[in-house]
């Protein structure tokens, strides 16, 4: 059996105490001096091990408490109270919710998948990715060998252009030359960040994690430094500056170069291919209303990989009202109609915040997904965007140790990989390449709603009259 893809994890504690959902407010005055104080009964010994982080002025009471409410309920004089931490509520924004951020922090710390034990309280649908439900029909029983055991579920994808047929000469010799392909064991690459504090530690952490997980990280041409030299096999160089500035030697060493879309992008691709025929070229552009037309045109002209980007909330250009999953579905379907879909690889990025979003984008038609902000959140980013205003980062991301960052990212990606296996196992799909575009195995809330309710109130629909 083929070697199983597995990401090694190691617990990597945060440098700063995380912002927790609830905080304890304990009045010390008015204590009845009970013989047996409720604080002594804490199962987690939170009160006994109490300390203060003077850098953040965070009490270990808040960070270590597991919210069991035992002390709150049992103090006879009701001196202990718990409240929702306002700082927690202020984390992130409407899209990057405190729950998402907290989940990523936890996964980055220990590499375990998030589990909520209290049942699912809903809501059962929401905007964006939440308006999509994946088929879980195969979840009826655990497989005999377990999806993390002997049963092999492949998450490998190929990036590059594919041939639709092979041609042989009369002697049976292959005459068609297959275009270069790059194989990654997980349909995830690391994208450039929409914003981040300075410091090269962040990029180095991305690259080190990409190398460890055997995937790629997109690096701006201008950000490439000599100390990234050893990571060249895991770099996708985004030539957004001037591709002609790249040395021939560099082009020969790189496996993938990403080009911003332009009128002469195919000519540049040809130029680069002449220097290094084994190079895979990505063409990157922002999702918009005419993205499917453009994608089809590029695919027709011989594009290998099309990288479609949305903003951090999964939306395309300003005038584009469609969320990334809907836009990618449209592009995927358009390419199928044009008979071009299987020739080209599609990568989607923007707004991917959870492991399930990777699976959902693949179901909507992307071959792979590029992730950005979650990688920064793995390194404790609070999505406060202070860096965009030139204010110093509250968690000092400028000065991180890249090995620490890489370990956190690796933990997160391991958690995501395991969740991807769970989703695929539940769908009964053992090969992620088979899951791409499997929209029949998912339900889309808006469409169901339309199907059921659109006929309501229309005269003549009842009883067929």
């Amino acid at each position, binding site marked *: 059996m083929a070697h199983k893809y597995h990401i090694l994890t190691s617990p990597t504690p945060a440098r700063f105490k995380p912002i927790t959902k609830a*905080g304890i*407010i304990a*009045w010390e*005055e008015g204590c009845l001096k009970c013989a047996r104080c409720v604080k002594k009964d804490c199962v987690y010994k939170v009160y006994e091990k109490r300390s*203060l982080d*003077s*850098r*953040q*002025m965070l*009490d270990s009471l808040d960070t270590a408490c597991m919210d069991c409410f035992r002390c709150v309920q049992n103090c006879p004089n009701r001196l202990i*109270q718990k*409240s929702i*931490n*306002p*700082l927690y509520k*202020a984390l992130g924004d409407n899209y990057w919710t405190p729950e998402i951020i907290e989940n990523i922090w936890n996964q980055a710390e220990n590499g375990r998948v998030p589990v909520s034990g209290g049942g699912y309280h809903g809501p059962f649908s929401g905007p964006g990715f939440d308006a999509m439900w994946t088929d879980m029909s195969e979840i009826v029983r655990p497989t005999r060998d377990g999806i993390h055991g002997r049963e092999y579920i492949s998450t490998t994808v190929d990036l590059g252009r594919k041939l639709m047929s092979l041609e042989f000469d009369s002697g049976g010799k292959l005459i068609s030359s297959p275009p270069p392909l790059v194989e990654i064991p997980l349909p995830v690459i690391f994208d450039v960040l929409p914003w981040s504090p300075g410091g090269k530690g962040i990029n180095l952490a991305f690259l080190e994690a990409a190398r460890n997980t055997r995937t790629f990280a997109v690096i701006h041409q201008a950000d490439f430094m000599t100390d990234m030299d050893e990571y060249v096999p895991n770099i996708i160089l985004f030539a957004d500056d001037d591709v002609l500035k790249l040395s021939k030697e560099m082009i020969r060493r790189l496996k993938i170069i990403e080009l911003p879309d332009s009128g002469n992008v195919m000519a540049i691709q040809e130029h680069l291919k002449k220097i290094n025929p084994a190079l895979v070229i990505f063409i990157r552009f922002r999702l918009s209303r005419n993205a499917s037309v453009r994608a089809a045109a590029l695919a027709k002209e011989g594009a290998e990989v099309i990288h479609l980007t949305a903003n951090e909330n999964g939306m395309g250009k300003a005038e584009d009202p469609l969320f990334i999953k809907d836009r990618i579905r449209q592009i995927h379907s358009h390419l199928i109609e044009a008979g071009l879909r299987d020739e080209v690889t599609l990568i989607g990025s923007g707004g991917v915040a959870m492991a399930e979003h990777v699976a959902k984008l693949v179901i909507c038609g992307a071959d792979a997904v590029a992730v950005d902000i979650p990688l920064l959140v793995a390194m404790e980013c609070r999505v*406060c965007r*202070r860096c965009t*205003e*030139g*204010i*110093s980062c509250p968690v000092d991301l400028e000065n991180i140790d890249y090995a620490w960052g890489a370990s956190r990212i690796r933990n997160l990606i391991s958690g995501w990989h395991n969740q991807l296996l769970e989703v695929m196992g539940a769908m009964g799909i053992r090969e992620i390449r088979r899951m791409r575009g499997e929209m029949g195995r998912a339900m889309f809330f808006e469409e169901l709603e339309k199907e059921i309710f659109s006929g309501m109130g229309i005269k003549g629909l009842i009883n067929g009259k």
Partner: protein
Amino acid sequence: MKKTNAGKKYAIFFCQQIDKNQDVNRRSIEKEFGPQIRFFPIPCSGRIEPLHLMRAIESGADKVYVVTCPEGACRYREGNIRARKRLLYTQNLIEEIGLERGMLELIRLKAGNNYTVDKLTRELLG
């Protein structure tokens, strides 16, 4: 900021009930003063403890402010009263070891006004 205040380090503990949008409002101050000023938003001023204040002084603050809600307006009923008691207690402690009482100061807001953290800070430093 006045010249006399130049180079001084400030720590400001404030109750987050004062300004619901404190995270955004305090950014202009953070940008202007950089590491010279540090904000510690707390869920209720009653959450403050002598140790917090001592640690703030220990980590180099020249002046520590504790900003509380107006009396009678505490969300947790008596948090601001407790904050005052604890501040007085800490003032006595630091005086004993030879520091000025004035290093710690309680700011109790007046009822009926809407405060934002940035305006408040400018007033304090003004």
